[in-house]
């Protein structure tokens, strides 16, 4: 019981502290691809600290504008509390199912939307409409991934699902889903070629344009944790869990695997131009179709 609570707290701590590091790695790697030296790895931490110390300009009226960053960060933190880090269930892991996780993830996206709409800025509006489109098209892929494993293990429980592939081994459906997940990864974390909703050159960071100071710091942290979470999700769903019996080592191994995924994200991001939303939507549609196929295959027991 006590250990369960401790593990849940460790989750939050690990994600909050490690997410900026992964972002730093991604930035550094992007810089290397661009023949630049790049910022030091601690830069994202400093960015967040700096933003936290800045004045919070409220350029729009209304509580949704102020609440949105909080809600986004809170929902992503709730998500990371639930997951079994180091393949060790905490007090919450076996009480929730994948529906909760999907719900909380969507809540984060909706919060961004809410903030964008509340800021009443033309560019934020465009960003919001693009974000909405992305959410509608990409979330099903995530849902299918989790549902496919749920089919495999015959349970919607989070702990079972996340260890599902490791337990049931690789099949045709898992292989297909793994490919689809990788193809959708850039869209999950809003990196090139799918950073369409932010697209700084067209719509100037879209939904976040009116945010500053601590509010923006929260959004930034939200984006970083989200990136790490999706990388983590890939690791825990598709890679078999390693149990050394020593909890910190398990966590470290898992984090190392997450690092590899982040490296993948950064390299793909640095070598692709941004797509247009209409092109992206066609791409997502193909992904949804493929992920449905994977679920179908899983139902057939393949």
């Amino acid at each position, binding site marked *: 019981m006590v250990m369960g609570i401790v593990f849940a707290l460790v989750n939050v701590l690990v994600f909050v502290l490690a997410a900026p590091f992964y972002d730093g790695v991604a930035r550094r790697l992007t810089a*290397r*691809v*661009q*023949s*630049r*030296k790049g910022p030091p790895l601690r830069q994202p931490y400093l960015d967040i600290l700096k933003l936290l110390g800045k004045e919070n300009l409220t350029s729009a009226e209304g509580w949704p504008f102020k609440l949105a960053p909080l809600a986004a960060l809170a929902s992503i933190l709730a998500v990371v509390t639930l997951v079994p880090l180091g393949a060790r269930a905490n007090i919450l892991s076996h009480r929730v199912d994948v529906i909760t996780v999907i719900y909380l993830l969507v809540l984060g996206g909706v919060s961004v939307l809410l903030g964008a709409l509340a800021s009443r800025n033309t560019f934020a509006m465009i960003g919001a409409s693009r974000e909405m489109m992305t959410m509608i098209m990409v979330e099903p892929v995530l849902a299918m991934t989790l549902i496919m494993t749920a089919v495999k293990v015959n349970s919607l429980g989070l702990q079972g699902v996340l260890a599902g592939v490791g337990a049931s081994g690789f099949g045709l459906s898992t292989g297909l889903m793994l490919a689809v997940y990788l193809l959708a990864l850039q869209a999950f974390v809003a990196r090139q070629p799918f950073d369409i909703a932010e697209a700084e050159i067209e719509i100037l960071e879209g939904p976040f344009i009116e945010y500053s100071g601590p509010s923006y710091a929260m959004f930034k942290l939200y984006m970083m944790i989200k990136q790490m979470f999706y990388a983590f999700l890939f690791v825990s769903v598709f890679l078999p869990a390693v149990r050394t019996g020593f909890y910190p080592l398990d966590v470290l191994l898992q984090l190392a695997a997450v690092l590899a995924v982040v490296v993948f994200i950064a*390299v793909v991001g640095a*070598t692709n131009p941004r797509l247009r939303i209409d092109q992206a939507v066609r791409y997502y549609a193909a992904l949804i179709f493929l992920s449905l196929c994977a679920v179908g295959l899983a139902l057939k027991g393949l």
Partner: protein
Amino acid sequence: MWLTSKIKQILMVLKPGVVTLKYPFEPRPAPKDFRGAPRWDHTKCVGCGGCANHCPARTIMTRDICQEIRILLYDGSRCTYCGRCADLCPEKAIAMTSDFELATPSREDITTTLELFMLTCQRCGRCFDMEITNVIDKLDLRGYRYDDLEARAVLRRTSDRLDTALLEETENTSRPAE
């Protein structure tokens, strides 16, 4: 096509490595013949005002304050470092240095003021050597005749942006005691 391009892109970026320079932590001297901040050699300057005459940015000004003194004022804040002054100086008193780190909080750091002792020509007012034969580059500034108001009028006006405080300062320069 897409994949081969991506592979080529990765290969392309691997080769040069990191090209970021360590400047300003390591100095990076300007190459030879760089056009940096101009420097006046007051021992060579004869006060012909050729530089003031042909400065495209109008950032060099001359002003005659009395019978013997001509003030030459260079305001570096508006200088475009084209090097025209150095080109046209008949005495080669101006050199373009390699200084380029010129950012400063105080305008005085990049301002040069020369107080030139002039001899008044009582006869013709054309005492400067008119070495420049190119018609369009000729000095339309004549010699030094403080008493000749018409000659003074030929002095090119610089634009109003030239620091007014500096301008006033030149007005206040007093005649050196005998």
